[in-house]
């Protein structure tokens, strides 16, 4: 009966209820939109690491993120090959490049040179063509989102990167990096574009044998490569994200916006629920006089907060889903991990309950004697 009373009061007081629901929707949508964009940017930040099939990345000394490394001697591969746990080790080249559009405008790109024939660390989703086409000496990929940048080339069209001839052999599907426009090619072509000496590379990607202990293998690699950084894949991914979060102000910016969205939502919920309780003071006094305990009033207002939270969360997710679906093909970074809706719903409900605290406090303090006034 208490939940029925709670529900009936909410339906009866439509305007304040709608206001409180709006507060929940504001929290869920604004925070959800901000965080899905942040998660989208996360995937951009460590996109190469996350999609590589290597277990360990070896980078230049003092590397603190996957998008900036020094040069490594290729001969490190020989040292690694001597370790028991290693299935393969492949040097990869990354370099900054500049391409010219047909109209003469220059565009910066990041060229990734993959080791043939394995082409490990290479592109993983294609709109046209396949990874094998990078075995062609001049072969490169461009991404579907960057086609305009390159003057809408067709497969087989020739472009220039750092004034070196390349041929568009494949179009990747939504592979975007935080570091810039990605162009995949084979290592030989990348070396030509970068003018990197033949005994140098940017990273060495290492695959461990099945069942190998990653920590033990990493320790052994660090022992044989004291002048390099050896990172398990997930560690480098985390480091990269942390680097951008801290050093670019993204963390502060998104954190502040999330906080402000939450605060605005809480204020709306608090004010509307509190006003509603003020208007219902006499009803609560009557309920108390009829034998309602403070905890019964608490349950009624708590039920109201839960109902408002549930409706707001549902509408907020609906709005968020529409927004994410509507912007799916845009350049707006967005990604929603599987766990996020559950955590976000719980977080929003917790904020809704927090916002209802003043209302609960006031309602439970209503004296039954006021029913006589």
């Amino acid at each position, binding site marked *: *009966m208490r939940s029925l*009373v709670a529900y009936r009061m909410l339906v009866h007081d439509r305007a304040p209820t709608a206001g409180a629901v709006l507060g929940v929707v504001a929290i869920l949508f604004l925070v959800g939109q901000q965080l899905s964009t942040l998660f989208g940017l996360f995937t951009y930040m460590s996109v190469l690491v996350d999609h590589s099939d290597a277990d360990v990345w070896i980078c230049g000394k003092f590397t603190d993120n996957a998008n900036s490394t020094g040069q490594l001697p290729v001969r490190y591969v020989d040292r690694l090959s001597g370790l028991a746990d290693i299935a393969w080790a492949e040097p990869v080249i990354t370099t900054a490049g500049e391409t010219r559009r047909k109209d003469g405008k220059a565009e910066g790109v990041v060229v990734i040179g993959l080791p043939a024939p394995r082409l490990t660390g290479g592109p993983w989703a294609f709109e046209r063509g396949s990874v094998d086409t990078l075995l062609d000496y001049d072969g490169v990929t461009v991404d579907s989102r960057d086609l305009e940048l390159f003057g809408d080339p067709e497969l087989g069209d020739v472009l220039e990167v750092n004034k070196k001839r390349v041929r568009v052999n494949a179009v990747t599907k939504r592979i975007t990096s935080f570091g810039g426009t990605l162009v995949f090619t084979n290592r030989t072509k990348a070396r030509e574009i970068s003018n990197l000496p033949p005994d140098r590379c940017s990273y060495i990607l290492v695959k461990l044998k099945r069942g190998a202990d990653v920590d033990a293998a990493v320790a052994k690699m660090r022992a044989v490569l004291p002048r390099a950084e050896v990172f398990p894949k997930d560690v480098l991914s985390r480091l990269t994200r942390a680097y951008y979060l801290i050093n670019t102000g993204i963390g502060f910016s998104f954190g502040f916006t999330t906080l402000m969205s939450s605060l605005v939502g809480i204020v709306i919920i608090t004010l509307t629920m509190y006003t509603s309780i003020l208007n219902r003071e006499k*009803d609560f006094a009557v309920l108390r006089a*009829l*034998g*309602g*305990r403070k905890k019964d009033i608490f349950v009624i207002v708590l039920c109201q907060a839960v109902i408002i939270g549930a409706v707001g969360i549902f509408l907020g997710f609906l709005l968020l889903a529409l927004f994410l679906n509507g912007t799916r093909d845009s350049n707006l970074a967005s990604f929603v991990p599987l766990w996020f809706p559950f955590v976000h719903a719980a977080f929003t409900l917790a904020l809704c309950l927090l916002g209802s605290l003043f209302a609960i406090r006031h309602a439970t303090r209503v004296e039954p004697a006021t*029913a006589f006034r």
Partner: protein
Amino acid sequence: MAKSILTLKGISRDFYDAKVRQRVLKNIDLEFYAGELAIVAGPSGSGKTTLLSIMGLILKPSEGRIYIKGEDVSDLAEDREATLRRRNFGFVFQTPTEIPALTILENILVANAVQGTRVPPALRDKAQSLLASFGLSEYAHVKPKVLSTGEKQRVAIARALINDPVLLLCDEPTSALDAENSALVLDTLKGVSRDDDRGVVLVTHDPRVYPYGDRVITLEHGAVVHDWRREVAA
């Protein structure tokens, strides 16, 4: 001999206005019986409603003891008081206090289920029959706003009776009603008081109500100045 329902012994109540103590009830000794409609009369500010609140365990006295059917209930915790209130008392307030968000039937049932208990079908039937006895069956599933003030007060009486209380406490229930509706409500209360297990206490300052009472207690300045009981024909 009529059964004693409620006994007040040495009840006093103080209120503080700007830290100045004001004693609004002074050493009240009263006993209320089943089958009796007792009227508590007196001018405004004499302490009638305060006395009613203390009798209904809504307000704690500053001094004195309260007994329900001989059991001392003066020092109970708030939750226990609320439960006793629900079981033993029915309230009819000065102005209609139906919760506007609930239907008439739900308003009656809430008096029983306010502590979160399920409403058994038998109780629903009882509420329906109470409404029928007050000629309000057709309003069971509508909101209170469509009812007249007199009808709302009769719903309040039905709500007060749903738990079979031993004492009905009514705070000037006819003050907002016209003569015709007042008579209807007072007749209803008179009828309710004709139960060997139940009494009715009605607070008023309207002398036209006195004839309905089996007993008239007059308060002045917080003290009982007169306690008149109608003589029962042998």
